């Protein structure tokens, strides 16, 4: 517990000046995303599902922001819309004050460079037929970044704790944790300012999970990154994030400083979610029964 607050205090020193600079680095205003279900009848169109229902969010430069919620709460939809990989039905997304929702892809090159993503399962997010060197340098060539790719790849591999003699190997030759390190190196390659990580440690063993979380913390500091963590694992988010937003049924039900939400949740849904997290103390079943009553 004490360590957690130390860390937040420590990162405040780093992010303090940025936080007050005004414009959020990534901002969504009144976002709505509707999907149409497949048609069930020949006469009527399929039902409309609101995956996001009026979500507003502002992520400040340099902070670590967590989006938590259960499957179907809309957290992944929100992260995709913030990255302009999907368009909102209504509402606006701005990156550093520039509007990115509704903008043509060819005008979004700055965003593709500045905002990168890490996905849950590196086995499916890394092309199995590409060698590590090419996997990591691909974003550099795709974005036309002029530098010595070989040097840059070596630099990135060192930054994520891999030796640079692995460039000629394929993803299947690595363990889950090492593959996630490769995915992180690839995300860092173009020198992004924001990294969106969607469940980056959910597929990993506990000991490896701690290694990757340490790595993400170090890299965020070293490269002055803004980190957006999307996760259903509340203990991971608590460790890593300065602020969180709790999502439920397409809405943000509660947002604020992580420690404050964990110690004093205001919404019934947040309380229920927190009560469902198993702990080493082993009092889950009693706690959960109480919150359910």
């Amino acid at each position, binding site marked *: *517990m004490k*360590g*957690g607050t*130390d*860390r937040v205090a*420590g990162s405040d020193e780093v992010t303090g000046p940025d936080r007050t600079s005004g414009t959020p680095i990534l901002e969504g205003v009144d976002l709505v995303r509707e999907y149409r279900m497949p048609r069930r009848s020949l006469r009527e169109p399929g039902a409309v599902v609101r995956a996001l229902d009026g979500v507003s969010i502002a992520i400040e430069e340099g902070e670590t922001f967590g989006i938590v919620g*259960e*499957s179907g709460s809309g957290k992944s939809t929100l992260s995709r819309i913030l990255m302009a990989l999907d368009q909102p039905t209504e509402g606006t997304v701005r990156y550093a004050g520039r509007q990115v929702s509704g903008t043509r892809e060819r005008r979004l090159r700055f965003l593709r460079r500045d905002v990168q993503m890490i996905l849950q399962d590196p086995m499916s997010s890394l092309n199995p037929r590409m060698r590590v060197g090419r996997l990591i340098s691909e974003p550099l060539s795709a974005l036309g970044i002029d530098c010595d790719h070989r040097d840059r790849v070596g630099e990135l591999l060192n930054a994520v704790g891999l030796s640079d003699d692995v460039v000629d190997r394929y993803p299947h030759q690595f*363990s*889950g*944790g090492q593959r996630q390190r490769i995915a992180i190196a690839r995300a860092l390659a173009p020198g992004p300012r924001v990294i969106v990580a969607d469940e980056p440690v959910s597929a990993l*063993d*506990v*000991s*490896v*999970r*701690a*290694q990757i*979380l*340490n790595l993400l*913390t170090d890299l965020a500091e070293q490269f002055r990154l803004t980190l957006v963590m999307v996760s*259903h*694992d*509340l*203990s*991971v988010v*608590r*460790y890593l994030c300065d602020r969180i937003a709790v999502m439920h049924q397409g809405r943000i039900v509660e947002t604020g400083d992580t420690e404050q939400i964990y110690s004093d949740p205001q919404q019934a849904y947040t309380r*229920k*979610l927190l*009560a*469902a*997290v*198993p*702990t*080493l*103390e*082993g*009092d*889950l*079943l009693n706690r*959960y*029964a109480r919150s359910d009553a």
Partner: protein
Amino acid sequence: MSGLTVENLVVEVNGQPAVRGVSFELDSGGRTGLIGESGCGKSLTALALMGLLPHGVTASGSVLLDGRNLLDLSDKEMCRVRGNSLAMVFQEPMTALNPMMRVGKQIAESLRMHRGMDRAAAGRRAVELLDRVRLPEPEQTARKYPHQLSGGQRQRVVLAIALACDPVVLVADEPTTALDVTVQAQMLRLMDELVREEGASLLLITHDLPVVASVCEEVLVMYGGTIVETGLVREVFDAPRHHYTAGLLASTALDSVDGSGRLATIPGRVPSLGQFPDGCVYRNRCPRADEVCVATPLLSGDEPSLTGDLAVSQIGRRAFACHHPLHDDRVGA
């Protein structure tokens, strides 16, 4: 009364021992956790108990249930045990269920096969079982296909199938890993209740220590195909004696960091099969390893009188396989 007794279980993959002489006993009504990282032999142990090892993987030793060694049974005899007195819940309910069959029928199938019930009686019992695992509107649910259910509902159906024939032993391999936290909490509560009420013994296999702390009384810590520590959950988690257990606990506890704000980790990674060191399996990652560790430590307790090979660990018996056990003060916190 004992549910299942495993003695000196050895599982070999292409001649390489992946599980090397594991012994434990599951008490009826008891809830035992089996923990460790991926690649430590947890799932192979479960598959060996169930007689579901893939081709090229062989098991030796003994798995005693009702006085019979399951490893000696023919495939046909094993089919009568599996799903009957010995049932299993798998991690991924979508692959455990038949996508082409209504869920009610899948539950009834097991009852008709093992209990010889007719179709109508088995169908009625299936609805009762769906109600028992707290699925709303059990009659309608019985007529649904797996894809029409959510992940949590599917896992309840798998549990209903497992419980259909009142098993003596329920083996659950990562039953909640694919589920959301609130659904996980419901599922754990349900398993806990059902196991208590039915008097079955539960073997819960997971890498998630808090899940074990929530449901189990006893825990077996597995590394490199051997059990490195065992005892009551409270004792093992509060005061681990093996350095591997301590490392797992420390890397689980995300609320404790060292002076520079870093989480505790276990150095290195799980070696691949056949790459584990001789002697103590953990010595290439252990902070305390020295030349003594070249000799294989025995799984033994603290008191000198108890030292020696525990052929079958007694219920709640505290034992660890380490030459330099940690002392009672909590490490890593």
